[in-house]
């Protein structure tokens, strides 16, 4: 049974959605248990797959039994799990599980009688994302991108906020353009190689007279533009801020950490497995321009985040900046840049999840969208605020959180490959992040306008009697336990991911041995 894991991994959320469809409609309370079991099964599969990959290298799984011994490669659809996507599988399932715990009560409140639909859509989104991560077939990737995009359009449009539906409309238009460009790119590749399987295409592209024809260059541009639109890379990010800040809170917690990161993974998979790093970094030679684009993305994302008034909008612009990190890292044409980019995909997913859950709890409890309405958080909600602080410190890049180590590898890649613009952009963005988050801590710590200067000779109430928190229980000011516990788990994961980044990076490097980044510096 153990070699059927990729299938079970994908099927359990799919069956979860179907059972919710059949059973959940009548009694909404049944929906969550089904969701929880489905996601736990796929989490278990993801972890055992990761163990298998670490033990015995990449796994190839041929759907329909069309394995290469019987039929030439590319007849059936192949799934391939190596170090990189095994880790991403675990991240996706963990984030989905944590979001489902967060949504136990919140989904009911926000979508009232459509809770089963919400759970069905989120499970199908998980199927789409897991499928994208696992597939090794270019067209199959398009179909799964469509599955995940369609469900995310619906999840964004479900909310009661009118602006949410308008944002969903823009998201559909941009998303379809992106997916169609990707489809067109695959079409161009198919026309030149006659193959759809990534490894087969790579083989055929490696001989120069096919590989260097303008069609393949145009195909690469199309795929790149398509994937950049899906990941909201700087010039094409128009849809992201509105979509993620006006959608229901449970959707933002599910979409924000996953959608853009999986699209970055798709870009890296296409770059390494389909075109190969030699083709991209030597014959194409765009790495400088793309890294400069990434620098613009990082700086613009951070500065725009600085200009925001609403908390969730600010976090969305931070996502745009983080995408700039990853794209820049991947395009440094340097081993450590690529390792940094992949590690950042993992750490950034959890960082974004932590910040979004905390932001949603603040907005729900304080009924305040804007940053300056969040005063007195340290006193009222100490536990949630500590979770937020850990997420923020990770975003700034303070050790021992995961954010620091991903910046470390990206900076190392930047310095070694001599892209000083990228190094400077990273530092500027870290500083701007510091300002951003300390501005929030200040409001949370001081309150909107602190009392006049302290010269009055200490007429404060005496501290000796219990402080003004005066809370009988520890959780009185906090959100509901089902919302705070996932936050704390995510914060813990961020720190653990940071502290134990050694083994994770070792797995990534093992996977990268298979497809070395050309001009790879000494490890």
């Amino acid at each position, binding site marked *: 049974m153990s070699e059927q894991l990729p299938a079970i991994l994908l099927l359990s959320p799919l069956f979860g959605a179907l059972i919710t469809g059949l059973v959940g409609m009548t009694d909404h309370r049944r929906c969550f248990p089904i969701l929880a079991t489905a996601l736990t099964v796929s989490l278990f599969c993801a972890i055992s797959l990761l163990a298998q990959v670490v033990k015995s290298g990449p796994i190839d799984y041929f759907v329909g039994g069309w394995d290469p011994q019987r039929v030439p490669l590319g007849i059936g659809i192949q799934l391939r799990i190596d170090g990189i996507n095994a880790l991403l599988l675990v991240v996706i399932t963990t984030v989905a599980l944590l979001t489902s715990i967060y949504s136990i009560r919140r989904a009911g409140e926000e979508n009232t009688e459509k809770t089963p639909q919400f759970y069905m859509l989120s499970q199908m989104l998980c199927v789409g994302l897991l499928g994208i991560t696992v597939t090794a077939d270019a*067209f199959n990737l398009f*179909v799964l991108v*469509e599955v995940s995009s*369609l469900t995310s*359009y*619906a999840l964004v*449009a479900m909310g*009661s*906020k*009118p*602006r949410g*539906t*308008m944002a*969903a*409309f823009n998201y*559909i*238009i941009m998303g*379809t*353009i992106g*997916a*169609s460009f990707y*489809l*067109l790119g695959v*079409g161009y590749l*198919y*026309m030149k190689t006659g193959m*759809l399987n990534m490894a087969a295409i790579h083989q055929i592209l490696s001989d120069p007279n096919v590989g260097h024809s303008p069609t393949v260059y145009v195909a690469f541009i199309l795929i790149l533009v398509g994937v950049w639109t899906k990941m909201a890379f700087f010039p094409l990010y128009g849809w992201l801020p509105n979509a993620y800040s006006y959608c229901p809170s449970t959707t933002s917690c599910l979409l924000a950490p996953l959608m853009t990161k999986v699209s970055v993974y798709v870009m890296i998979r296409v770059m390494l497995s389909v075109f190969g790093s030699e083709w991209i970094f030597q014959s194409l030679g765009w790495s400088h321009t793309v890294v400069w684009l990434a620098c613009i993305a990082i700086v613009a994302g951070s500065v725009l985040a600085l200009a925001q008034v609403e908390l969730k909008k600010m976090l969305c612009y931070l996502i745009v900046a983080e995408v700039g990190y990853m794209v820049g890292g991947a395009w440094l044409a340097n081993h450590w840049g690529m390792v940094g980019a992949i590690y950042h995909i993992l750490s950034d997913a959890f960082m974004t999840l932590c910040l979004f859950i905390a932001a949603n709890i603040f907005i729900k409890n304080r009924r305040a969208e804007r940053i300056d309405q969040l005063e007195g958080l340290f006193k009222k909600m100490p536990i949630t605020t500590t979770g937020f602080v850990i997420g923020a410190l990770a975003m700034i890049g303070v050790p021992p959180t995961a954010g620091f180590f991903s910046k470390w590898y990206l900076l190392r890649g930047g310095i070694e490959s001599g892209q000083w613009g990228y190094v400077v952009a990273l530092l500027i963005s870290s500083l701007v992040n510091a300002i951003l988050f300390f501005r929030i801590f200040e409001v949370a710590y001081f309150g909107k306008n602190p009392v006049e200067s302290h010269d009055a000779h200490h007429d404060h109430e005496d501290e000796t009697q219990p402080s003004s928190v005066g809370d009988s229980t520890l959780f009185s000011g906090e959100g509901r336990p089902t919302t705070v516990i996932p936050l704390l788990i995510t914060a813990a994961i961020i720190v653990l991911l940071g502290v134990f980044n050694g083994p994770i990076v070792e797995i990534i490097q093992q996977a990268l041995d298979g497809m070395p980044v050309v001009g790879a510096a000494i490890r």
Partner: protein
Amino acid sequence: MEFIQNSVLPHFNYWVYVILMMIGLYAMITKKNLVKKLIGMTIFQTAIILFYVSIGVKTGSTIPILEHHAEEHGEAVTDTGGHHEEAPGEHESHDSIHAVDPDHFANPLPHVLMLTAIVVGVSTLGVALAISQSIYKDFGTLEEHEILEKIKQGGPGIDV
């Protein structure tokens, strides 16, 4: 002229698909009315379907369905264009079709892929229409500039 001869005529389909696609893209970006944007989106997707299908065309080939005939027709039919009435349903011996000549049949793969793309197009269009209806319910208009106006004013209904 010879540019037309050797680069436009043999790729006539591909020129048409690019033009169609650009019309769709232009409509999506610049049209104000939401439904017109959706029409642009559909044109955009249909153009890609045209591109894919025109990859798999082989001159002188028929649809990729293998005919099974009585014994006399052992080798595959090579004359093009000949019509054959189909032996009704039953096929006597299983191996009546062997040594099929690939050039005789069109390339099936693009057709399969485009079946999926059409279905995806329909689904996206359906969801987009549903969203535009719910926008109409909230904003009362489908003109993008009017909607943005209403959002800017932040009417009571807006920031619910």
